[in-house]
């Protein structure tokens, strides 16, 4: 019997009534101003003037929106070994502040999460420290070395949600094929960071006009798209299930679309930074804009938005990648790849895509939760009897990213300094209050 995939620290079930919020959940179909009662870990009741349970806290939802809380299938929590960047507590606190009720953590830690004892100790630590439920994707290959499979079946029994070598590609086609064959025994989605190192080389940003001007070695989009196409072929041949992480370019979107057309079991994600920024943001060599895959062109960005709209891209994932200040405060080419994203994901998408009318709010809400089902996790939904996973958001609230600091231990956010609209004021994850703004007023 496999262990339950998500773990978190014990937290008391919330007993509260959110009164007068605009409740919006495209899945349950609810779209009205009403009251929501939370009790015993569940949404106990929905309806105007619903009776407050004994001792319930009343939360004023007036002028605010209540959404199903979000799920992020791609974050770096840095435990074990890199706790100077982030840990299970700070990372899940940042997630809760961004309205997330569940996240999936990547294994490129130190040591790499590639064995059952390591996974067990990590999950034990999460049971003490994680503010919201966390799942773990251990490595496909030992030490992310690309040459030996991990003990995938044992890892699954220990609670592995899936497998990934994220941060590195599975360079060998033969190795990926074996992992997909083995997947028939143990299950678990294989999530892939797609990159051909012979093409990306020492690249530090997108190869194009901006890299030509800056003299910084480029990462061509074909380093990603050729691997997406290759791996879709392998997955199709083996009947395996793959998930392509952080798509960044138009050719990769096309490769995923073509594979879906052929019936390959392939899903894909895109990050807020790839959906909202381009390589123009790298002109100043701001190390917060350095990530892998890199920010690419406007045409690539538009293709990602279109892919998200059409469903070729199944979900949004932040690839939250915290780095310490001294690690990023170096020349661009020396800086590590990655941006934080958990605290800004919804607000950035709302400000830059929903408000200008590029994408409907309902679609963005879906894509912020669709990651759950891809990995076999329950999808947050607002309906009576469902687990209480709720994000109360003030869509009118403007805030400057980074003003007042971050919940994350790190500050390397690509949206730092931007004025965004839409602020999470309360997050309920698996029935417990996981976050509330410091200025939040309790109405007795």
């Amino acid at each position, binding site marked *: 019997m496999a262990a339950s995939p998500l773990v978190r620290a014990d937290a008391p079930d919330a007993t509260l009534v959110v009164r007068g919020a605009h409740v919006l959940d495209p899945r349950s179909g609810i779209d009205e101003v009403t009251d929501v009662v939370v009790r015993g870990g569940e949404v106990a009741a929905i309806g105007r003037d619903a009776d407050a349970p004994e001792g319930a806290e009343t939360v004023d939802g007036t002028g605010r929106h209540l959404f199903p809380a979000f799920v992020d299938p791609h974050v770096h929590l840095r435990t074990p070994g890199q706790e100077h960047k982030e840990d299970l507590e700070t990372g899940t606190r940042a997630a809760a502040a961004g309205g997330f009720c569940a996240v999936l953590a990547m294994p490129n830690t130190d040591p790499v999460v590639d064995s059952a004892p390591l996974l067990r100790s990590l999950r034990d630590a999460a049971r003490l420290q994680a503010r919201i439920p966390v799942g773990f994707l251990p490595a496909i290959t030992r030490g992310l070395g690309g040459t030996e499979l991990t003990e995938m079946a044992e890892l699954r029994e220990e609670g592995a949600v899936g497998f990934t070598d994220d941060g590195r590609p599975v360079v060998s086609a033969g190795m990926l094929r074996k992992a997909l064959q083995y997947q028939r025994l143990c299950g678990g989605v294989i999530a892939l960071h797609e990159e051909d190192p012979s093409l990306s080389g020492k690249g530090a940003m997108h190869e194009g006009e901006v890299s030509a001007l800056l*003299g*910084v070695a480029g990462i061509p989009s074909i380093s990603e798209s050729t691997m997406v196409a290759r791996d879709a072929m392998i997955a199709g041949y083996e009947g395996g299930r793959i998930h392509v992480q952080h798509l960044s370019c138009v050719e990769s979107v096309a490769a995923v679309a073509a594979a879906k057309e052929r019936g390959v079991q392939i899903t894909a994600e895109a990050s807020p930074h790839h959906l909202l920024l381009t390589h123009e943001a790298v002109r100043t060599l701001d190390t917060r804009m350095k990530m892998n895959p890199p920010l690419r062109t406007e045409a690539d960005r538009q293709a990602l938005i279109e892919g998200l709209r059409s469903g070729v891209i199944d979900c949004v994932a932040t690839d939250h990648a915290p780095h310490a200040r001294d690690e990023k405060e170096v020349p661009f080419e020396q800086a590590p790849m990655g941006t934080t994203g958990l605290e800004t994901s919804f607000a950035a998408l709302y400000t830059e895509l929903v408000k200008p009318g590029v994408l409907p709010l309902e679609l963005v809400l879906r894509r912020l939760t669709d990651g759950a089902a891809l990995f076999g996790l329950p999808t947050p939904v607002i309906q009576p009897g469902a687990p209480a996973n709720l994000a109360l958001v003030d869509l009118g609230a403007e805030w400057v990213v980074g003003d007042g600091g971050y919940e994350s231990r790190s500050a390397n956010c690509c949206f730092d300094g931007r004025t965004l609209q839409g602020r999470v004021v309360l997050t309920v994850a698996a029935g417990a209050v996981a976050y509330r703004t410091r200025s939040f007023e309790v109405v007795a």
Partner: protein
Amino acid sequence: MRHLLSIEDLDRADIERICDRAGAFEEVAEREVKKVPALRGRTVLNLFYEASTRTRSSFELAAKRLSADVVNFAASGSSVEKGESLKDTILTLGAHKPDAIVIRTPWAGAAELVSRWTPAAIVNAGDGKHEHPTQALLDVHTLRRRLGNLDGAKIWIVGDVLHSRVARSNILAFQKMGAEVTVAGPPTLIPRGIEALGCDVRYTLDDLPQADVVYALRMQHERMTDSFVPSLREYATWYQVNGRRLGPRQVLMHPGPVNRGVELSAEVVDSPQAVITAQVAAGVVVRMAVLYEVLAHANATAPHETDPSHPVPA
């Protein structure tokens, strides 16, 4: 001008002003005592993270001819090898209160980054493969001396553009001065997207006779081991500027050091068309003008300066 970080930051008037002042400094080199007191009491720190003989000594000579105190700091054998970060190095050296830091690093944007960590004026002496602005200024100065002006001049930059900070700075500087720039070289060494800088791209030297100026770049041996070119012999066959390819009215430039027999044949290096030694000489006066620009000019209250518009006090 507070710093010299990039040719991108300069306009034509800035470039002309610096070159004019460099011209005024030329007379100093002819004196018996090759020194003027323009920067007396000022400290210039040369901070080099990459091996460099020419650029470093050229800056050193420029600072000394302006009577500045010069400290050379090489990254090898220093705290940098003990793992000190660039920021900590700058903060540490900043405690010596340098007025200007001349910095070369293997990293794009490092000079700009450093300018945020110190009140000293920063002069970029090469940041990775990004820019080498004083090289571009001395090349413009050399060409103005030779041609009068660059308006309408057709300048071909030939060779390894991909790995060349000189190419990037010179494309920008030559264009700002009114020249038409073409880059030519093997397709593996021409960066994708370079057309966005407004230059033409060629993969052969067939049309080289159109050029008024031929600017050859240094071809490094390691490009061969990285498979950018199959062999230096084949490179030379296709891209070497030699007596057969170079016309009598064309001007030949090279940033040095030259690989004779690779990018240039011996006969053109020694030909009257070549201005390579003039470029080296221009290096000192242009760097004097740059140091003057960021130090003396920025601060009209400097004790030894009565009129900053006169660069060479008697």
